[in-house]
């Protein structure tokens, strides 16, 4: 990794010596820091994926692909499939709930909008563990939900709500729903409302106007929201552990275990690479969707 300050300083002759000095002074420390504490660590993880496991954690300097082969074993493939399923379910639910909510806020009179948005993000600013813990309380067999159901006579015995896949999805949804609503709201707020008026003036039904105008124009916002929800859901290991109770293992738990318990760092590195690969794929999809939508509106 070359320091970008060094590569750019050779280029433009027009910039005086003074400017070059300031450029290095401003950009240098931060870029060195990012390189040292992000780029180098991530490069190390990448290289560990191709090395043999050391006896006490760490690695031996010997090239191998066996870590990748290990990831293809059925046990680990099923964990990966399970994680993708849970993260996808969370994202779809967040989209289904977040869309009408963002739409409702965008349609509010402007003096209400800020308050409505603050009320959405407020829980997000509280400690993540506390928010997850709240669901441990809520879903407990002696907890408020079961008590209410039993006192209303709907069930005779407490339902096993905690330590299920549904509990994990509920916890993730609770943690990341605001991250879906904010970008959706932003895309609705930015939308040119005169397009809707034009459509209805030209005789389109309200549904038709929504489907042909609002929906495609808010698709990039929905994609960003989907990324914001999917990414932290996929790598999460706290919610599956606390609300899934060890029965629901996700790829995040597996990675954590390789690094802190099993001490198989190369295998952990491979799993982390797989996780990041899915995220890159998602980002590419988002870029594709937003380019298509922008292309359509500029043609119109």
């Amino acid at each position, binding site marked *: 990794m070359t320091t970008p300050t060094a590569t750019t300083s050779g280029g433009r002759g027009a910039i005086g010596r003074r400017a070059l000095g300031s450029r290095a002074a401003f950009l240098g420390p931060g870029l060195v820091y990012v390189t040292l504490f992000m780029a180098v660590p991530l490069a190390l993880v990448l290289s560990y994926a191709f090395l043999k496991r050391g006896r006490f954690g760490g690695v031996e300097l010997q090239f191998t692909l066996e870590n990748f082969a290990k990831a293809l074993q059925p046990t680990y493939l099923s964990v990966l499939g399970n994680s993708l399923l849970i993260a996808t379910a969370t994202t779809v639910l967040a989209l289904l709930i977040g869309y009408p909510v963002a739409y409702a806020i965008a349609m509010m009179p402007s003096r209400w909008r800020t308050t409505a948005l603050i009320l959405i993000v407020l829980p997000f600013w509280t400690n993540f563990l506390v928010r997850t813990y709240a669901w441990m309380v809520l879903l407990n067999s002696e907890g408020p939900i079961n*008590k209410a159901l039993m006192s209303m006579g709907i069930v005779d015995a407490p339902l096993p709500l905690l330590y299920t896949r549904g509990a994990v999805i509920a916890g993730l949804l609770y943690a990341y729903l605001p991250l879906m609503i904010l970008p959706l709201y932003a895309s609705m707020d930015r939308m040119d409302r005169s397009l809707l008026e034009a459509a209805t003036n030209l005789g389109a039904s309200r549904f038709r106007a929504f489907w042909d105008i609002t929906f495609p124009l808010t698709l990039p916002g929905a994609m960003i929201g989907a990324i914001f929800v999917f990414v932290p859901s996929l790598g999460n290991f706290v919610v599956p552990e606390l609300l899934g109770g060890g029965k629901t293992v996700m790829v995040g738990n597996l990675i954590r275990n390789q690094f802190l318990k099993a001490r198989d760092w190369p295998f952990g590195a491979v799993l982390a690479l797989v996780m990041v690969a899915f995220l890159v794929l998602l980002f590419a999809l988002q870029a594709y969707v937003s380019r298509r939508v922008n292309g359509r509106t500029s043609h119109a």
Partner: protein
Amino acid sequence: MRNLGWLRLPLLLTYAFLYIPIAVLVILSFNASKFPFKWTGFSLHWYDALFHDAAIRQGFINTLIVAVGATILATVLGTLLAIGIARYTRSALLEAYALAPAIVPDLALAIGLLVFFSFIHFTLGLHTVLLAHVVFGMAFVAAVVTARIGQVDPSLEEASRDLGASAVSTFFRITVPNLAPAIIAGALLVFTLSLDEFVIAYFTDGPSTPTLPIVIYSMVRFGVTPVVNALAALLLLVSFTAVIAMQRFARLSDAL
């Protein structure tokens, strides 16, 4: 409000979904019973127990040390970076590289730093958590300050230099005062993020100096305990106050 029609229903249900779990925690924190779910009357007993819990107190002190240190370092580095990005480069790639730590999944950064610190034989402790929190903190400060810098006229700085002020004095007398609201907002953001950060701290902390989130994690892993209810209620109060204060502050700086 009335013109929202049926859209009011999903909105109200979502607010209920967001706030009922919090409300339940707060109510149970005042429960006198030592059984977590059996209401036997109002009591401040668990708050008293909380203030006498040595592990929680030490965790809180550790967290404050990390958050204060990381905020100072991240604010200095992030502000310099933002000015550098806005004034001295046009490279979008460079900007993306500098802001990347804000987007990289926390688990990836966490294992990267664990591997890195062990590679260079660095003992884990509060100092490694602090260094780790600066990485993403710096990117958040840079992002907030870069957004503001576009609204500040660069000719003010040029005029200062043309009139004979040194680069250093121009920086402290023109650039920094103009950016002050954004720098403070960025610092507050890093401080709040660092206080709550769990995943990276969990991987880069040593065993003898747990931060508060790590203490909470080790408590809730073994189930529901009333002391955690009280702690949760207090943390909720702190973060709600902080958010409302930040909102007030932002509005004030807009008005100025």
